[in-house]
């Protein structure tokens, strides 16, 4: 299925408080230098554009492989480059395996880190040390993104897909950041917010709603999709770095 994402998204601007265009560009250059090969492989295997994966790394951790909400290197549930929660990752990987979605390359990378599947499709628990491995963190982050895109654009749940096949990356960012089932996750996907119907007809309208219950996620949407944001820079200034596609 061919989807499109419009960048920079009309009406959104990356918040200046997060840095100038040049400083965000330098951050992206560091990420490409340090993890470019891992991003490239994860992109090829998941079919998610490298610019999307690189932007999630930038916004979630700034490219710091031991970034943690409770202090660098400390084993918070969401430590690492893409800040996914290790408590849900075992089931995510088992779901990917049972749907036969893991490619041979992905299985090979997982195996390198001791993550294999038994005859019942079960794997081991993912730990803090796993999260600190850039290659593994990026691979699993892209698998999570792929599952979100598949689930939220499927025929019966096309919540993140417009009729003209525009992929609503703002909604994917929101659910990735807020989670699918927590309080903020439920608010992110609810058609009503505190009883009032949510207008999601444009990215700006949805992001204004998100801002009322999760300002961090609203900032992430602006930073990734807005003018002078990560996707804008990657698909213009850094187009020759191979990550702007």
């Amino acid at each position, binding site marked *: *299925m*061919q*989807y*499109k*994402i*419009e*960048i*920079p*998204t*009309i009406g959104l601007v990356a918040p200046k408080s997060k840095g100038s265009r040049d400083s965000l560009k330098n951050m992206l250059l560091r990420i490409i230098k340090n993890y470019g090969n891992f991003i490239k492989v994860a992109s090829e295997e*998941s*079919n*998610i*554009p490298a*610019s*999307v994966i690189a932007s999630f790394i930038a916004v979630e951790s700034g490219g710091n492989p031991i970034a943690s909400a409770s202090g660098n290197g400390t084993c918070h549930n969401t430590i690492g480059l893409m800040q996914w929660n290790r408590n849900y990752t075992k089931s995510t990987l088992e*779901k990917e395996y049972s*749907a*036969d*979605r893991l490619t041979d390359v992905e299985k090979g990378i997982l195996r390198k880190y001791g993550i294999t599947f038994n005859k019942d499709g079960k794997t081991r628990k993912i730990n803090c040390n796993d999260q600190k491995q850039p290659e593994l963190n990026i691979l699993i982050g892209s698998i999570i993104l*792929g*599952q979100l*895109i*598949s*689930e939220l654009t*499927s025929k*019966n749940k096309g919540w993140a897909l417009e009729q003209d096949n525009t*992929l609503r990356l703002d909604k994917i960012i929101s659910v990735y950041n807020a989670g699918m089932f927590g309080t903020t996750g439920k608010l992110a996907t609810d058609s009503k917010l505190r009883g009032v119907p949510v207008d999601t007809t444009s990215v700006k309208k949805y992001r204004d709603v998100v801002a009322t219950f999760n300002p961090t996620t609203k900032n992430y949407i602006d930073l990734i999709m807005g003018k002078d944001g990560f*996707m804008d820079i990657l*698909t*213009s200034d850094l187009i020759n770095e191979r990550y*702007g*596609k």
Partner: protein
Amino acid sequence: MNKKEYLLLFLGLTAIAVTGVFIYKSVKGLSSNITKEQKEELDIKIVRTDNK
């Protein structure tokens, strides 16, 4: 059985069938339906708004 009992039996069986279909659809709706094809066929193009 008289006519009234047949009618009650019919209504009871219909109610059970409708409830069964409802439960089946609810469970099916909650289950994940991600597929290998969705991943393999995913093709995302970035469209620059300043080039439109």
